């Protein structure tokens, strides 16, 4: 059986920056436990002699000359932002008050 507990899910939610409700954490704990148990079978055949494949088609790094090209204008880049001041994205405080 997996080691998925409500504390684990709570911690993962914090890492993933999703403010899950207690009900969601409870439900996900059961679901993730079942999914993790099911996908754990990958380790059955993943013996040390098998190399890992990260990418289906072998490729090497692609480089291009470092020359300025056409980019988005400031207006275009800010057009979809929830909040901006005309030249920058606006967010609330990065640090909490006590910090």
């Amino acid at each position, binding site marked *: 059986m997996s080691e998925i507990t409500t504390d684990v899910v709570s911690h993962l939610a914090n890492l993933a920056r*999703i403010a899950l409700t207690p009900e969601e954490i409870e439900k996900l704990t059961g679901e993730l436990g079942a*999914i993790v148990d099911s996908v754990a079978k990958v380790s059955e055949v993943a013996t040390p002699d098998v190399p890992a494949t990260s990418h*289906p088609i072998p490729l090497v790094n692609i480089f291009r000359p470092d020359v300025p090209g056409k980019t*988005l204008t400031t207006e275009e880049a800010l057009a979809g932002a929830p909040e901006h001041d005309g030249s920058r994205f606006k967010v609330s405080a990065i640090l909490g008050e006590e910090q």
Partner: protein
Amino acid sequence: MSLITLSAADLAAKLQSGEVSSVEATQAHLDRIAAVDGDVHAFLHVNSAALEAAATVDAQRAAGEKLGPLAGVPIAIKDVLCTIGMPSTAGSKILEGWIPPYDATPVALLRAAGLIPLGKTNMDEFAMGSSTEHSAYGPTRNPWDFDRIPGGSGGGSAAALAAFEAPLALGSDTGGSIRQPGAVTGTVGVKPTYGGVSRYGAIALASSLDQVGPVTRTVLDAGLLHDVIGKYDPRDSTSLKDAWPSFADAAREGARAESLKGLRIGVVKELDSPGFQPGVTQRFHEAIELLTSAGAEIVEVSAPHFEYAVAAYYVILPAEASSNLAKFDSVRFGMRAKVSGTVEDVMAATREAGFGPEVKRRIILGTYALSAGYYDAYYGSAQKVRTLIQRDFASAFEKADVLISPSAPTTAFKFGEKIDDPLAMYLNDVTTIPANLAGVPGMSLPIGLAPEDGLPVGFQIMAPAREDARLYALGATLERLLEEKWGRTLISQAPAL
């Protein structure tokens, strides 16, 4: 009816001869959308500039400009692709109303080739699902039976084709999101070789698996569309520089082929109906007989590691998705929850409010699979399984030129049937996932209706990486053999709506 039931190839011929204008063809499809999409719900957005684009192409044609083969033909675009001037939400509330400042490369190529974007099609949120039930904007209904799912994630594109709301569509396929909707709606879908079509501007789900491809009603139409979008793109570092042959030509040659003598077709033993719906198995075996009678050599091949494919996929996909979806941080685009607190509080509240249950499930699963102490056991092992699956493909392709299987284990299932059981939903992808893990191309085409429920059954063809042309050649031959046998197309039997 006639303009909307034509294949894209036939419509293109009428446009070229001047018999029909692009404005007329576009209007006919907009009228059809207005008439039936209230029931089907294939579209999330209809392009208000479509007629204007069509008039431009008509004017270019009148002026004698050289136009591409599909110029003036309308097309629907899966909402996962970024489009200037049209919202692009990937089926998520977190991107509601977002209009990208750039076109995805496949969309830019379509526009340059004179195709007319009709609008954006519905999908499971961020392409996570097999039924469109995970769309934040409500499900799409299968035109063959409104109580059933149209497949997913690209159910909107496939349903738009089956309901004659569009003659062509674009989809994206990470674990079967083009092929499985094709199978359950009686349409054709192709996942090209990984890297064959640019992913630039396709909102990423799992970057090592995602591939954009054609959704059509005929094999030739898929080839024509693939020819338009299959171009090297320096903005996608995984884009292949291959000089591709014309896939439309491959389809035309396949349709003309007198015999399949000399072609070795491999039936993948592990995907030959272990517990599949009996009607799916029956139609699959009938299609094999048809291919045999046309002279093909049928060989059984074994891919022993395919049974690990779904498990590997549901480690790799959530891991990559959890990383890709970190960009939805309420800062640069998309929604922002109205809460007070630090930027991280706002971010967490936004992601809680903006993501649906399946997206949260997969982000949490991916975060777990990538976390310290578990990385080797899950992600590392899954990547090794990927190697084993590639080896299975390599040895199978020594014995056979193409591999075949049913495209999906069942016909379209009913709404609600699997929504509360994520594992049952995941197992639905057992036939399509191996091709994504190995990067090889795959096609689904309709081979009949299952006797028990009268719903379409899909046939999958897979080829070695970079040999997409083989899909089109064999697909077009099988399509012609079936139509000769039936005396009509399968899609012509779809309900009139």
